[in-house]
């Protein structure tokens, strides 16, 4: 019986093994994970889990019973150390090796480490262990400084604020979310912090962090000193591709793949999720995307292609990501950052914000959208971006949507 080994037990790996069975695969399937934890979902780690409203059971992606039902062998607590593509073997850190016919690489990305090391009290949020440690520190008093004003930083700031902490967010960019939504719309995201009493120091970098948990000092490049009981560093992620350096695969900020999620020149090696830098046939370029939905979608494509090699599918998604910050549900579709012009339908101001920003480029098509507290507009825009709709038509369609009966 052929063996499929899936390396990585986060959402991309788990969805791959589930999708293999849905696609009718009867191969032996082994799921390998570095952490000894049963697979868990990461988006809640900066939100509901961190806030204490969801427990570990609520974020499980796969239980031991479900793995048995799927006839999937779990090898948890087994870090992948080396991939022998020609010899079709995965070598694990415990000295053992797994033979495979097809391997799926799903080792994801890691939090970019803090460049300001101190003994204690400085956190990143990527793994369950990270979130547990931060959750414990957030139960104490004292100010919190979040370094990094992107999505993780903003979500952690919102959660810490909800837990009653005084929060300051620092980022070297004047409008951190502007990287994704453009600076003009990004100003509304900065205002969202301020409306909740969270201070921002944007356009200012961190010079140093000193002290220890409960008594830290964050010194900014403009000389400002911020006292902090807890510091959270959310400055992006880096692909977990170091272990593949000797594999012979093309590794360059992730593993380079074709449109079918196969590593170039190695058709029995599939790559899914944050680790993949794959060729997007719609955009005609290689991309690496760190979104939950992309991990799930690429897992489904890879599993289908493994089970049906005579009917290969391409992975060509419209980008989609969400973020929950304070009283905003933010949903982003397509590529707003590549746009030249945008239009707002509804409002992003005040306590009852509900709006959609639609983006276009010089070609006159809808290229992306950012919605706040308006899932119906998001779904509409997602469909319109997929269909290549014209911008004016899209603005009219979203403008014609009925108002919500109740605030989202």
């Amino acid at each position, binding site marked *: 019986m052929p063996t499929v080994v899936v390396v990585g037990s986060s959402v991309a790996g788990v969805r791959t093994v589930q999708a293999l069975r849905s696609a009718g695969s009867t191969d032996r399937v082994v799921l390998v994970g570095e952490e000894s934890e049963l697979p868990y979902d990461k988006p809640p780690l900066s939100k509901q889990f961190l806030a204490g409203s969801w427990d570990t059971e609520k974020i499980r992606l796969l239980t031991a019973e479900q793995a048995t039902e799927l006839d999937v062998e779990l090898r948890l607590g087994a870090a992948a150390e080396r991939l022998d593509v020609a010899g079709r073997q995965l070598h694990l850190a415990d000295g053992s090796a797994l033979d495979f016919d097809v391997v799926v690489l799903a080792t994801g990305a890691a939090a970019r480490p803090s460049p300001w090391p101190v003994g204690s009290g400085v956190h990143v949020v990527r793994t369950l262990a990270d979130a547990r440690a931060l959750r414990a520190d957030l139960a104490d008093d004292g100010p919190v400084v979040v370094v990094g004003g992107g999505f993780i930083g903003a979500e952690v700031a919102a959660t810490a604020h909800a837990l009653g902490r005084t929060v300051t967010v620092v980022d070297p960019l004047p409008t951190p979310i502007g990287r994704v939504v453009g600076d003009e719309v990004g100003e509304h995201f900065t205002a969202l912090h301020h409306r909740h009493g969270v201070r921002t120091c944007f356009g200012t970098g961190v010079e140093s962090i000193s002290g220890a948990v409960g008594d830290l000092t964050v010194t900014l490049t403009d000389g400002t000193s911020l006292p902090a009981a807890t510091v959270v560093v959310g400055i992006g992620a880096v692909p977990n591709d170091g272990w593949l350096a000797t594999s012979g695969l093309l590794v360059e900020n992730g593993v380079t793949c074709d449109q079918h999620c196969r590593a170039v020149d190695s058709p029995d090696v599939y790559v899914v999720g944050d680790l993949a830098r794959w060729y997007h046939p719609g955009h005609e370029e290689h991309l690496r995307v760190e979104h939950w939905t992309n991990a799930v979608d690429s897992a489904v494509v890879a599993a289908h292609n493994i089970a049906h090699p005579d009917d290969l599918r391409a992975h060509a998604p419209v980008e989609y990501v969400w973020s929950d910050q304070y009283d905003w*549900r933010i949903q982003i579709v397509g590529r707003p950052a590549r746009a030249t012009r945008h239009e707002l339908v509804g409002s992003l101001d005040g306590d009852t914000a509900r709006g959609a920003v639609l983006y276009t480029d010089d070609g006159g098509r809808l290229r992306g959208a950012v919605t706040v507290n308006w899932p119906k507009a998001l779904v509409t825009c997602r469909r319109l971006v*997929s269909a290549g709709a014209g911008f004016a038509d899209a603005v009219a369609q979203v403008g014609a949507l009925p108002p919500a009966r109740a605030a989202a």
Partner: protein
Amino acid sequence: MPRLTADHEACQGYGNCITGAPDVYDIDDDGVVVLLKDEIPDSDRARVEEAARSCPVSALAVED
């Protein structure tokens, strides 16, 4: 035939299900999932299972 279920309390309006199976799932004006069918033929099962598993809060299921 496989039966579809939706947890309307859990649904957060993320909308992934609609991209995967727009003939089965929709969303109402308040952002809550709507089932367009109660049952699906076995031939649709793999596709609808993937759409259900694309829900970030596990609000959807395909049951026997």
